């Protein structure tokens, strides 16, 4: 399970932004985060991933210490058993869809099987520049999932996907949540989405996380 209590500060030239994030995500559970644009949701994910370093506090995952300001520990992202799906461009332009999925594939399933599962086999040899935004997003989701992470971090993962297809992705997430006992932290503007898949939700306001019952 993920437990974190961190302070962070962005020395923005326009305003000082202070954050205090306190959250817990159980093993094999999906936690949602929502809030207005610019509230700091992506920042939270980046801090948990290790791409930014908090000012103080701790981030623990099970027995592993990912960050502890008192013990001066900051584990680099590579060593944390997670994967992060970003909003926007993230597929590697020099590799095909299939190669992108194979990049960190740790799931035991081949990229061909993954693509087949989502009816995306016809995209296997295509380079990311020749995919639509929705297709890019779906492939990026598969790539993050294929790593078989203990913690999956998703930043607006389904925003460009058709409503009819979304159900498949919710199903997949829930499936691997059970099979791999994987924890998920998902950011979304879509409250319906979060209500459908999450066991708990937080609202991010004024730099703080509020538990949503």
């Amino acid at each position, binding site marked *: 399970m993920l437990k974190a209590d961190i302070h962070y500060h962005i020395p923005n030239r326009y305003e000082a932004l202070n954050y205090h994030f306190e959250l817990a995500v159980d093993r094999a559970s999906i936690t949602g985060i929502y809030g207005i644009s610019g509230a700091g949701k992506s920042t939270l994910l980046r801090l948990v991933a290790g791409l930014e370093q908090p000012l103080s506090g701790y981030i623990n995952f099970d027995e592993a210490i990912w960050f502890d300001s008192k013990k001066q520990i900051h584990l680099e992202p590579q060593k*944390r058993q997670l994967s992060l799906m970003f909003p926007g461009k993230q597929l*590697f332009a020099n590799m095909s869809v299939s190669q992108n999925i194979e990049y*960190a594939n740790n799931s035991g399933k081949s990229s061909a099987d993954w693509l087949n599962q989502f009816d995306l086999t016809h995209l296997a040899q295509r380079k990311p520049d020749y995919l639509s935004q929705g297709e890019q997003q779906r492939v990026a989701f598969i790539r993050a999932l294929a790593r078989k992470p203990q913690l999956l971090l998703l930043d607006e993962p389904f925003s460009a996907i058709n409503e009819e297809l979304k159900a498949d992705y919710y199903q997949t997430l829930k499936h691997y949540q059970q099979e791999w006992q994987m924890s998920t932290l998902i950011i979304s503007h879509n409250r319906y989405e979060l209500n459908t898949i999450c066991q708990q939700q937080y609202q991010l306001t004024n730099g703080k996380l509020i538990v949503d019952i």
Partner: protein
Amino acid sequence: MELYPYWLSLKLAFITSAILLVISIPLAYYIAYSKHKAKFILEAICTLPLVLPPTVLGYYLLITFSPNQGLGAWLKNTFDWQIAFSFSGLVIGSVIYSLPFMLQPILHGFTQLPSTYQEASYTLGKSKLFTLCRVLLPCTKPAIITGCILSFAHTLGEFGVVLMLGGHLKSTKVVSIAIYDEVQMMNYSQANQYALSLLIFSFLTLIAANLFKSRYVKG
């Protein structure tokens, strides 16, 4: 007309470009991605040869490596290696002089890449070196090729540094010097032959390299 200057010019351009390729990639990586506060000083040093008159550079290299004093004398006495007035001196001078022509395109190539490439790779568990080799470098291939073309062409045309550091020896008489010599001796037809052939060769090299880049290397 001697053909040896052609051989020397090509040899100098190839060796210089090869050395620059090897040094510029780690340098560009550091300047592009390091968060060190003083890195702008390093960047300025690497850009200096662009604004420095070649004869100034050649002069300081001559002083540094002159076999009559300091470093140059020590090298000569210890290793019997004389850098001033030798081909290896030209290589050192060319590498410094053409550095910005290899470094700038590669640096630009790196900074153009979305930061999500590295971040995605790291969060997928891949090391910095793995990311550099499997993602960053393949994506900057056009920039690397541009750097190679520019530094090669630039070295071919080098004159000021060679004039200061090369002396008047057969082993350092590249085509640009040969042209100068022939003009001094008023052998204008010889000078023209050298000049025209260098012009045509450079032009054809640039066309061929750009064609290769646009057809076979996807950006």
